Every structure is written in C-alpha cells, then in structure tokens.
C-alpha cells in the first residue's frame, strides 16, 4: 500500500521531468561522482568540499528545466492543473519529491565519493550544506524569468557552500561538526518547507486574485 503510494508520488514527479532532463541529471551525477572521487583522492577533504560546491551549483542550474519560474507572478500558467480535481495534489507531490531527490542525490554522491576516495572525518555535514543551499538557491531562482539570474544564484549558492565548509575545515571549527550539521539541516528543512509552501501558495493563488 505504502509502496504504491510512493510509486505514485515518484510518477507524479517524473512526469514533470523531460527525458533530456533525466538523462542530464544522471550524467551530471556520474560526472560529479567522478570529480568527487578524483578530488577527494588528491585533495582529501578540500577536494570533497569542492565537489559539494559543484553539486550545489548543478542542482540550482538544473531547476531551470524543471520548476523554473514556478513562483513568478503569472499564476495562469497553472490553469491546466486547476482544471482537474487532482491538480494541486500532483504539483505538491512533484515539488516535494524533487526536494527528496535533491537530498538523496547530495547524500548519495558525497557518500560514494567519500567511500571510494578512502577519506575519513565524515561527509554528512557537506551533504547537508549542499542540500540546504541548493534548496535556498532553487527557492530564489523560481521567482526568476531568466537563465542568467538562475546561473548567478547557482554560483552564489555554490560559493556559500565552499566558503562555509572551507572555513569550518581550516579554522578548527570541525570540532563543532555536529552542531554545524544540525544548523545546515535546520536551514535545509526550513528552505524545503518554504519552497513547498510558496510554490503551492502561488499555484493556488491563481484560483483567486492573488
């Protein structure tokens, strides 16, 4: 029962992704994994931090082909979904599954790179940082209407991840890793909640004058 529910939600997410997008995400994930393993093997923790920054940028950029402009003030573009009784449910499931996919991608790629590069010291805080700022970046870019704005936000989000993780690694803050991980987790969850709530508010807003 639960499995069929999850399957339905995955299907609702996948329907928003084009074939090219799916292929692109798979290729990007493979390249990021390779880069993570390579950088991790040569530059250890710093290399993996760079991979986390790249991953953040890739996630924000890739949203251009998915829900870009979802929160822009043109609610009539969701008229089609409002013509069905299931429309709101479908878009909510799709946005939520996208967030879950982003989290699992960050966790999976960095965990695999960490293990394959034979590193020590943990990777969870990097995955949480990458997820948190890629979601924040995605949230902001969904208001936009131009790829250039999306690219700027992607670079800015990646820079925040790089700076915050490098600061942690180089300034002895790594002893507070658990606390920092929790902070990233809180930021990630807050940004996720905001992304779902704002997306749904805008789409539902089309029913009224909002």
């Amino acid at each position, binding site marked *: 029962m639960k499995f069929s529910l999850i399957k339905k939600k995955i299907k609702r997410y996948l329907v928003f992704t*084009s*074939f090219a997008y799916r292929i692109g995400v798979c290729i990007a994930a493979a390249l990021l994994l390779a880069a993570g393993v390579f950088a991790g093997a040569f530059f250890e923790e710093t290399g993996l931090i760079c991979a986390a920054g790249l991953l953040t940028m890739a996630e924000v950029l890739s949203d251009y082909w998915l829900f870009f402009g979802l929160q822009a003030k043109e609610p009539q*573009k969701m008229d*089609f979904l409002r*013509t069905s009784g*299931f429309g709101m449910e*479908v878009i909510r499931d799709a946005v939520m599954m996208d967030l879950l996919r982003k989290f699992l991608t960050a966790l999976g790629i960095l965990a695999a790179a960490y293990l394959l590069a034979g590193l020590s010291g943990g990777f969870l805080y990097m995955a949480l940082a990458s997820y948190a700022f890629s979601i924040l970046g995605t949230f902001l870019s969904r208001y936009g209407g131009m790829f250039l704005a999306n690219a700027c936000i992607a670079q800015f989000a990646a820079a925040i991840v790089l700076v915050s993780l490098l600061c942690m690694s180089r300034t002895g803050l790594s002893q507070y890793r658990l606390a920092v991980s929790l902070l990233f987790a809180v930021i990630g969850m807050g940004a996720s909640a905001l992304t779902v709530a704002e997306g749904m508010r805008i789409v539902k807003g089309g029913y009224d004058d909002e």
Partner: protein
Amino acid sequence: MAESVIQARNLRKKYGDFQLCIPHLEIPKGFATALIGENGAGKTTLLNILSGVRLDFEGEVFYFGNQSQGLDGSVQERIGYTGTGGYFLPNWTVRQVGELNEMLFSRFHKERFESLCEEMGLGRSRSKSVKKLSDGNRVKLMLTAVLSRDTDLLILDEPASPLDPLMREQLCDRMRDYLDGGNGGRSIFFSTHNIADMENATDYCLIMEQGTIVEEGFVEDLKEKYVLVKGEAADAAQAGDILFSMNRGSYGFEGICPARDLERFAGMDVAVEIPTLSQICVSVMKKSRNSVQ
C-alpha cells in the same frame, strides 16, 4: 429553452473598475454556444469561473442539469477546458502534456492523444517544449489534450484566434464531430472574436458587453429577430434613428434593427436582408455600448 448543461445565478466578480454581473445564465445542452464580446467584456473571466479555474466569485453555478451539483473533481472530469496564454508550464514537452493528462484525468485515452497529435500536425513536435511551439500549435495541443478525453462539455477560450483559416475550418469540423458523437449529450461553450469564421459551428449565441449578457438566443432565432436594412443615402438620417448602427457609403446606408421596427421605415426606399451573425453581434454590441454611454 432546451435542457441546460450549465446554469448560473447572480454571478458577480469585481476587478478594479470592471464588474462581471450576470443575474441568470443558461448554456443549452447538446449545442455549441458562442460567447461573443469585445476585448475586456468579461468573456475569459466568465469562462474561468465556469471551468473552475477561478473560485473567487459570488453566485451559484450548477452543472449538467443537477441543481445541487456544484463544481468538484467529478464534474471537472467531465469538462474539457482550454485557456489562453500560459496554460501549460513553458518547459513541458508535448509528450509530458500527454503524460500529465493521463495522471490528472481518468477518462483520458493515450492512444487517442497520439493519433490526434499526428492528425493535428504535432507528431514531429513531441519532444518540443511548449514555449517553442507557435501560438497556433499551442492551441492545437490544448485541443488535442481535451479531445483525447471522454468529456460531456468543452469550454474553449478563444480557440480560433491563433489558428489559420484552414485550421479554423478544421476546428469547426471537430466541434461538430464532437457534438455529433455525443448524440445530444455533449455541449460546447466557446468564446470567439472570429464570428464569421465560427458561425458554422455556432448554434446558440451569447453576446456580452461590459460584464453582462446583453443578447442571447439560437442563431436562427436571432436571424429572425433582427434584419439587415439597406437604403438610399437620402434616407440615411431618418433611418439612423431606427437602426442599431449604420454603415454609410456613396451607395447609401446599411444597418441592423429588430424586425419588429421594420414598419418604421414606411415611406423609405429600403431593401431587407437576413443579417449574418457577425453583423448582428457587432450591432448589438454597439447599441449596448451607446446606451450605457
């Protein structure tokens, strides 16, 4: 009037200075009803309300002859709606539109969607995103999507506007086929500016002006209710008081008036003809606008 597919009472919706105000509305079942009016008359607002795309209005709407049946998922399942502007997310491909329809509507037929894509000339554009389609092809995609479902009512907002004349003719044929396929059980409610091109597909007509319905009726009845009067230039001034609106030229004048007013032309040298739907609509709209001013 015949049995109605939509009944509405006291519909009101305000946007700034504009107000939609329709005390009573009935769309006959089994026919194609055209909603005609100038830009800003409130046509899209009315269609959005009836299709459930907008919910912020006052009044009551009932569907399919059931006085207790408001809009819910089961009613939406029976209605196919096509809008204007950004109806789909711009990044969706034609194929994704099909997949989404399958997910959103239980009476959607994928095979029919595939074959209609071919017939509408979208077969080679399946991987193209909506934003890369021409305006005409976007309308074709919307029509393909709604015609791929088993519906009882189509609500189409300006389906003819972006289409070329050939495709408009095809649209009229498809609308006729849709109605014929339902054996009187299916209805269409559509808005249009292309009155002349869509006259063949129109059975019933609602003329809207400044947020309200100013005239309605079956096309045949309207053509009996109004007449086209042509006369000599010398009589133009006198005839102008009787006609709703008048076109003057070196040859004389012509204009529309209610058939009951024909006796007022006594003493003038006039010829009377059956007007086209377009001529009736334009005159009624002009008359309504003038009477408000």
